[in-house]
């Protein structure tokens, strides 16, 4: 246990002016700038929050249990990624490959959840019983008022939520779409490293910086989702926000 991990610390004795690895420095600079990129997208989403003139709105489409599962999957992929790096530094190439594959699978599962979510939002269908409508959201009340005024038994809408539907749709798809694109790029990166690991001498316990950089990127994608999940999803359906 004591010598479980023998990772060389990148950034020491690299032969650079600062003594730090330039590639790792560049990755951190990129991640810092990506913080600002996602910060501006989150700010845009928050500024437009509650400004949509018509629905569907977050409370109409969000399915918190489903998104919670995809959040859990992404969190677990981060653990898997760090264990892949840990296995590589201990010269456990087989373990490294297993954890890399599991990380890529969990990343793909997350993307699968996102595709499902986007398609269910786009095909969102509302059907309201005009006789006993029950508790209605603002959007459902609007459909009820329009559809039930002519004496129909049911009022329905097949509008769905698309990027052009309202401000919520535009800002939501832009923010989560860019995050999904980051995850997709991360999966391609991880699979590339996995393939490279079969080439002799390319990925070794001593030459692990490539994996370290990919891991940093992957964890960053995870922390961005932690923010999106809370700010967009949980706050999004909270009536007081």
């Amino acid at each position, binding site marked *: 246990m004591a010598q479980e991990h023998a990772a060389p610390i990148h950034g020491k004795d690299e032969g650079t002016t600062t003594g730090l690895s330039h590639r790792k420095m560049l990755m951190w600079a990129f991640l810092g700038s990506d913080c600002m990129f996602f910060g501006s997208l989150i700010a845009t989403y928050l500024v437009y929050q509650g400004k949509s003139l018509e629905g569907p709105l977050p409370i109409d489409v969000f399915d918190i249990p489903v998104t919670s599962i995809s959040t859990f999957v992404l969190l677990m992929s*981060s653990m898997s990624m760090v264990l892949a790096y840990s296995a590589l530094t201990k010269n456990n190439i087989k373990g490294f490959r297993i954890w890399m594959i599991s990380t890529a699978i969990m990343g793909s599962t997350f993307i699968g959840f996102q595709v499902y979510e986007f398609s269910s939002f786009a095909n969102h269908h509302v059907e309201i019983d005009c006789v006993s409508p029950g508790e209605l959201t603002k959007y459902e009340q609007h459909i009820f008022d329009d559809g039930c005024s002519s004496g129909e038994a049911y009022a329905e809408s097949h509008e769905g939520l698309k990027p052009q539907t309202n401000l919520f749709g535009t800002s939501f798809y832009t923010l989560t779409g860019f995050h999904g694109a980051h995850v997709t790029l991360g999966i391609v990166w991880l699979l590339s490293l996995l393939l490279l690991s079969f080439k002799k001498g390319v990925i070794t316990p001593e030459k692990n910086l490539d994996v370290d950089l990919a891991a940093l990127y992957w964890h960053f994608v995870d922390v961005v989702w932690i923010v999106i999940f809370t700010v967009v999803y949980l706050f999004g359906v909270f009536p007081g926000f």
Partner: protein
Amino acid sequence: MSQELSAEEHTGHPTAGQYFRIAVILCAITAVEIGIFYLEVIGHWMIPILFILSASKFALVAMYYMHLKFDHNLFSYMFVGGFILAACVISFLLLLFGVYS
């Protein structure tokens, strides 16, 4: 634990066991977040509570999984600098568009 800590001090990175424990904590915090979300009695306290829990998860991943706690401080400055700028951008945009009013 003392053995693990000595490994940490020796290599600069946590052990696989510690990574696993952090994952358990992250899952537990997420479960608490979702649980709190369905507790209507909390009311408006929900926003600061969820904010703190989310910030805790962010910090855990950044410090332990991204190794900021163990790597050179310059890496932390670069990332935290970008993060603070992003937080300022969000705050000022919300202020500019009157979201607080």
